[in-house]
């Protein structure tokens, strides 16, 4: 018997921890356990013997529990090692009735995506995910520190009139309100320039995500390019 999960969502605890990790590199913890919940909202069976692996761009957290009694499986929780519940998944209507002794194999996939836009006047563009999802997965797997998520550089990928890169990296100023993070940064190239891509990076590590304009914009030497951006977190 397969129980299909219809809807699920990250908890506010997870979003808060992720926001803190992006803002100052603290908070986000590793996946620790899986718990089944019955239709009355009571925790039933749990396992802390879980495995985590990356599969096709997703994080798979898997584990098995044995039903301690007869109950209707209503939800599955993914716990973090800091004691918080990071995800609660609800099954489709009717749930799944399990009988005592039933082995319940749980396959919990987590997908992290980046979406968004950039604009300059009438020119639009989009946010492009780079390594941010992998980094979040690595933190949940315990193979990377949450400090690696704290972006600390804005990479303006300028090119001069000969199309030679004259990239400039500056540290952003960041503010945080709830789970929203605002940041801004400015750069002043000393040559005539064109610009299409702006990366949000962890210096010395990687590009977490990038803003890509639909078309390159140009400017003269000494002009200042400023970016102001906001980040919000939620479920798809």
């Amino acid at each position, binding site marked *: *018997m*397969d129980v299909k*999960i219809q809807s*699920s*969502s*990250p908890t506010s605890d*997870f*979003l808060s921890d*992720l926001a803190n990790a*992006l803002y100052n590199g603290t908070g986000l913890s590793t996946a620790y356990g899986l718990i089944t919940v019955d239709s009355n909202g009571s925790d039933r069976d749990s396992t802390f013997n879980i495995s985590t692996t990356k599969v096709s761009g*997703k994080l798979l957290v898997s584990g098995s529990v044995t039903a301690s009694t007869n109950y209707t499986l209503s939800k*599955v929780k*993914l716990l973090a090692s800091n004691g918080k519940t990071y*995800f609660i*998944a609800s*099954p489709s209507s009717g749930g799944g009735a*399990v*009988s005592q*002794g*039933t*082995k*319940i*194999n*749980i*396959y*919990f*996939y*987590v*997908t*992290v*995506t*980046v*979406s*968004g*836009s*950039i*604009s*300059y006047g009438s020119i639009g563009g989009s*946010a492009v995910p780079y390594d*941010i999802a992998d980094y*979040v997965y690595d933190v949940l797997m315990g193979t990377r520190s949450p400090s690696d998520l704290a972006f600390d550089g804005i990479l303006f990928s300028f090119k001069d009139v000969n199309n030679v890169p004259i990239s400039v990296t500056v540290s952003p100023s960041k503010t945080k309100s709830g789970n929203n993070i605002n940041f801004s940064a400015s750069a002043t190239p000393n040559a005539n320039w064109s610009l299409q891509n*702006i990366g949000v990076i962890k210096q010395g590590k990687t590009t977490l*995500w990038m*803003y890509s304009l639909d078309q390159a*914009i140009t*400017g003269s030497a000494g*002009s*200042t*390019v*400023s*970016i*102001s*951006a*906001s*980040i*919000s*977190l*939620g*479920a*798809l």
Partner: protein
Amino acid sequence: MTGRDEKKTDDSDDLLSMIEMIIWLIVLLGLIAIFQSIFKRIQPSSIDVKVSDSVSLLTDASLIVVSPSDVVVDESVGINTSATLNVTQPSTQPPASETSITINDSVDISTSAYLSVS
């Protein structure tokens, strides 16, 4: 019969007796040899059982002398063991049921940015 003839007859009797004794002796030795051969066949052959067994314990030890009066032994023994457990349920019991749950969850990092040039 003369006295000389009587002596010849006695000597011949002695020689025959001696030859007879020798023949009996040979027969006796032959019987002994036959019996020995039979006994050897009857006796069980010997079996040598050699047992060579050994138990080894691999242990690493390091000795750290902190001070002339203190001896600290830091020892470790590693046990590497693997086991495979196979449980067969009695046929009278119903087979254990199994359920699989697959969950797809997602987190979206939504971001928007504005550029200005001055």
